[in-house]
C-alpha cells in the first residue's frame, strides 16, 4: 500500500462529496429533517387527550372524581350529563375516550361498596387507547384510595396508610419520548450515511466505468476500498457531531455522558455500517439495486429492530434473536446510555465490541467477494 495513492483517492472522494449535492443532502439535510421529525412530530407521549366525562350522578363524590380527571395535564375534559351527547363525538374522533360515572355512584359509595366507573376508549389507536384506559383506571383507583384514607383519618378507628407511593422515573424524569427518540435517531442518520451513501457511491463507480479505470492502475484493492471508507467515516463523524449539537442545543435533550464517549460509540458503529455498504455494492454493481438492498437490510432494521421505536424485550424470541445481528441495536442502546445515563463503560464497552464484531464479519465477507477483477 502506498500512502500517496491512498491520499489521492481520499482527496478525489472528498471532492466528489463536496460537489455532489446528493451526498450533502443525505449527510446533512436529511438528518436535520429526521431529527426535527423525531423531536417534534413523532411523540409517543400522551398529553391533553380529549376526554368526555359523563356525570350521570350529581352527588358531591361523583363531582369530586370528575374534577380529579380535569386536574391532570394528560386530559382535556369535556363534562356532560348524558352519554348520548358524547357518543357521536367519539365516532367523529373528536373525543378519544369517555368516562361514565353512573347514576348509582353515590348510593353504592354510601353502601360501602366500590362503585363501577366505565371507561370507553377509541380502539382505532391502540397505544393511546390502552394508555388512556390505564391512566383513567389509575385516576379512579387513586381517588378511592385517598378517599378511604381521608375517611379513616377522620373516623375513630383510624390506622391510616403509613406508606405513600411517590413514583420517580430514572434517566428520563419528565418521561418525554423525545429524550430517547432523538438519540436513537442518530443511529438512523448514521445508517443512512454509512450504509446507503457508501453503497450508492461504490455502485456509481461501477456504473460509470470509473471502477474499471481505477482497477487498471497500480492502486491495490485495499487502497481503493480505504479511499472510499475514510472520507465517509469522516462524514459520518461530522454528522454525529452535528446531530449531537442539534440534540443538545435545539431539542434540549441533555447529554449526560461525554462527547468523547459519543464519538467513540459512533466510530464503532461506522465500522459495521460502512462494511455493510461496501458489501452491498460489491454484490450489486448498480445504484438502483444497491439503494433497495441498503434500505431493506440497513435502514429498515435500524428503524424496526434496533429498539429505537419498539422495545426489543417485547418481540417474539426469534425476532429478538435476529436483533443481535443488527449493529444499530447496540448503537441505539449505547446512544441512549450516553445521553440519558452517562459514560457507563460497563454498558458501552460490550455494545461497542459487539458492533466491531458485526463489522468484522461484514469486512471479512467483503474481502472475500472483492477482488481487483471484473470477473464476478
Amino acid at each position, binding site marked *: 500500500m502506498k500512502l500517496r495513492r491512498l491520499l489521492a483517492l481520499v482527496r*478525489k472522494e472528498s471532492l466528489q462529496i463536496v460537489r455532489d449535492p446528493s451526498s450533502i443532502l443525505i449527510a446533512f439535510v436529511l438528518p436535520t429533517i429526521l431529527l426535527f421529525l423525531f423531536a417534534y412530530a413523532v411523540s409517543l407521549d400522551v398529553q391533553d387527550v380529549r376526554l368526555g366525562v359523563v356525570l350521570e350522578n350529581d352527588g358531591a363524590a361523583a363531582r369530586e372524581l370528575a374534577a380529579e380527571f380535569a386536574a391532570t395535564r394528560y386530559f382535556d375534559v369535556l363534562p356532560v350529563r348524558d352519554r348520548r351527547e358524547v357518543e357521536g363525538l367519539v365516532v367523529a374522533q373528536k373525543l378519544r375516550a369517555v368516562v361514565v360515572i353512573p347514576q348509582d355512584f353515590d348510593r353504592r359509595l354510601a353502601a360501602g361498596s366500590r362503585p363501577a366507573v366505565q371507561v370507553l376508549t377509541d380502539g382505532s389507536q391502540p397505544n393511546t387507547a390502552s394508555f388512556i384506559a390505564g391512566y383513567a383506571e389509575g385516576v379512579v383507583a387513586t381517588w378511592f384510595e385517598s378517599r378511604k384514607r381521608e375517611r379513616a383519618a377522620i373516623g375513630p378507628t383510624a390506622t391510616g396508610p403509613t406508606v405513600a407511593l411517590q413514583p420517580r422515573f430514572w434517566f428520563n424524569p419528565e418521561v418525554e419520548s423525545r429524550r430517547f427518540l432523538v438519540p436513537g435517531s442518530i443511529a438512523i442518520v448514521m445508517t443512512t450515511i454509512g450504509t446507503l451513501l457508501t453503497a450508492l457511491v461504490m455502485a456509481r463507480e461501477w456504473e460509470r466505468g*470509473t471502477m474499471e479505470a481505477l482497477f487498471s492502475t497500480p492502486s491495490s484493492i485495499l487502497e481503493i476500498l480505504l479511499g472510499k471508507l475514510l472520507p465517509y467515516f469522516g462524514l459520518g463523524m461530522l454528522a454525529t457531531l452535528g446531530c449531537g449539537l442539534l440534540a443538545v442545543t435545539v431539542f434540549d435533550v441533555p447529554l449526560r455522558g461525554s462527547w468523547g464517549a459519543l464519538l467513540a460509540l459512533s466510530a464503532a458503529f461506522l465500522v459495521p455500517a460502512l462494511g455493510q455498504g461496501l458489501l452491498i455494492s460489491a454484490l450489486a454493481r448498480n445504484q438502483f439495486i444497491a439503494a433497495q438492498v441498503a434500505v431493506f437490510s440497513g435502514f429498515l432494521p435500524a428503524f424496526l429492530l434496533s429498539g429505537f421505536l419498539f422495545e426489543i424485550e417485547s418481540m417474539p424470541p426469534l425476532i429478538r434473536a435476529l436483533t443481535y445481528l443488527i449493529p444499530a441495536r447496540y448503537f441505539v442502546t449505547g446512544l441512549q446510555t450516553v445521553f440519558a445515563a452517562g459514560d457507563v463503560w460497563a454498558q458501552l464497552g460490550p455494545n461497542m465490541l459487539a458492533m466491531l464484531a458485526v463489522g468484522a464479519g461484514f469486512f471479512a465477507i467483503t474481502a472475500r467477494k472483492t477482488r481487483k*477483477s*471484473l470477473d464476478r
Partner: protein
Amino acid sequence: MVATVEIRGLAKRFGDHPALHPFDATIEAGRLTGLVGPDGAGKTTLLRILAALMAPSEGSVRVLGHDVAREAVGIHAEVGYMPQRFGLYEDLSVMENLRLYSHLRGLRGKDLEATFERLLSFTRLGPFTERLAGRLSGGMKQKLGLACALMAHPKLLLLDEPSVGVDPVSRQELWRMVEELTDDGMAVVWSTAYLDEAERCDTVILLNEGRIEHDGPPEALTRRLAGRSFRLVRPDDDRRTLLAKALDLDGVRDGVIQGHGIRLVLAENEPRAAVDELARGAGAAVEAVPPRFEDAFIDCLGGGPGGRSAIAERMDPVEPDALNGDVAVEARQLTKRFGQFIAAERVDFEVRRGEVFGLLGPNGAGKSTTFKMLCGLLEPTSGEARVVSLDLRRAPSAAKRQLGYMAQKFSLYGLLSVRQNLEFYSGVYGLTGGRRRRRIEEMIETFGLERYLGESPETLPLGYKQRLALACALMHRPPVLFLDEPTSGVDPITRREFWSHINGLVRKGVTVLVTTHFMEEAEYCDRVALMNRARVIALDSPDALKARAATAERPDPTMEETFIALIEAGERRAEADPAGRAA
C-alpha cells in the same frame, strides 16, 4: 522482435455463454492494431483480459512478458487502458482527473510536471484545465481519457471504442495522436464497431460472435475481393428497386445503395456478365471499384441477405391523399433547451412524401432531441413540428396515429413475451377485435416470429429483436415511420436486412425519417441533414453533399470526410463573420 502481447489458445466463457472461442494472436510494438467487430463480438472482453481485469477461462496471455492471470500487478503498472466512456470522474475538473491518475501512477516531482505539460499540449486541453470533465464535449472527454491512460508512459495502450460519441473532427485528431504514439514505438489496440475504421489500422483482428475472422493487415482481407466490387451509376430505374433486383441474383454476394446508384459485390469466381446485364436493363453504367473492408467482412460471414422484404410486400401502398399534400413532416425553427444547455437550435427542414430522410451526426449532436420533438415525445422550447400537416401541439393524438416510432435500443418489454409485446403495441395503436388479431398473425408470419412467441424479447437474437421492434412500429400501417438509431449496435448483416425492409416500405410510399451515427448509412437516404452541436450544418442529397466536399486531391470523399469538410467549412465561415451566428 518480441511481441508486446502473445495470445495462446485464449478462450473466455461467462457461465455457459462463450464470449471468446479459443484463438492465438500476437500484437506487435509500434503498430496500431484494430480490434474490429460488431457489438457483442467480444472486443471489450478481449481488451479487459489484456488489461488484466479479467482472467482467461482457457489458454494463456502474456502482456509485456507478464502473465495476465498471475502477474496483474506488472500489467497494471505498464499498460494504459481507456475503458468505454473514458473512465473519467465527471464531477472533477480536467486537472483533478489528471492529478488523480498521475498520483495513482506514482508520478512525482519533475517527472510529473513534464508529463502534465507534454500531455496537455499533446491533447490541446491546456485552456480547459479548470473545467469539470462532465462539461466537456465528447471529443474533449475522449482526449482527457486518453491523457489519463497515457499517464503511465505505457508500452501498450488499450482503447475501448474511443470513437463512439465523438464528432468526426475530434475523431480525426485522435487518429493523429495515436499515429504519433505508434511512431514512438508504442503498441496501440483500438477497438471499434465501425468497419471503415479498420482500413486505417496497420493490422486488424476481426471478431464476430467471439471468433476471429481475420488477423492481419486489412489489405490482406480486402485484396481477396479484388475485381469483385462494382458500382452501377445513374440508373433510369429507382435505385431501391434496382438493389432489390440485384440482391436476388445468385452471383451477387452483397449490395448497398450508394449515392444515386448501387454498389455490388460478386461471389468468388462469379462472372460479371450478370451485373452487366442488370445494368443494361436499368440503363446504368458499370464501374469497377476497389473493395472495401466491409465488403470483405460481409464476404467472410457468407454474404448479405436477399433484397426482398416480406413486410413491405404485404403492406398496401400508402394512398397519395393520405398525407394532405406533398410534405409528410415539417420542422420549423425547432429549438429545445434543457436549462442552459441547447440540445437543438432552430432546426428547419421538410420531408417529402415517400422520402427517406436521414438525420446524421455524432452522439449528442441533437438528432434524438429533434426526432422526439417531431414525433411529439418532447415539447419544443420554440418552433413548430408537423406530421402529415397536423400540428403536434394542437392535434397530438391525430398526428401520432399517422406515425410509427421505433426507439433507440428497440424499447421492447423484457418482461412480456414476444406475443404479448405485439398485443400490447397493437392495443396502444388502437387496433381492436378481428383487425387486431389479423395484424398480429400477419406480423408473426411475415417476420418469422413463430418460434419465439413465448420468449422474452431480451433472449432473442439481435436480428429478431429488430424485426419485432419494426413489427410493433408498423402494426397500425403508419404512412410515416420514425426510426431512432435503428442500427446502432447491430452487425452489418442485420443492418442490411433492416434496410431491405425500409427500402421495400419506401417503394410502397411510406415516408421514413431515420437517425444514425453510421456515416455510411447516409447513402440509403434520399436527403440528409448533417447535425453538429445542436445545429443542422448542411442539408442535401448524399451525392450533392459529397460534391460540395470534393477537392482535387479527393475527388470522391466518403461521407465521413464530407462531414468533416463541411464542419470545418462552417467553422471557417463563423470565424470570418462572427456576427453571422447571432444574425
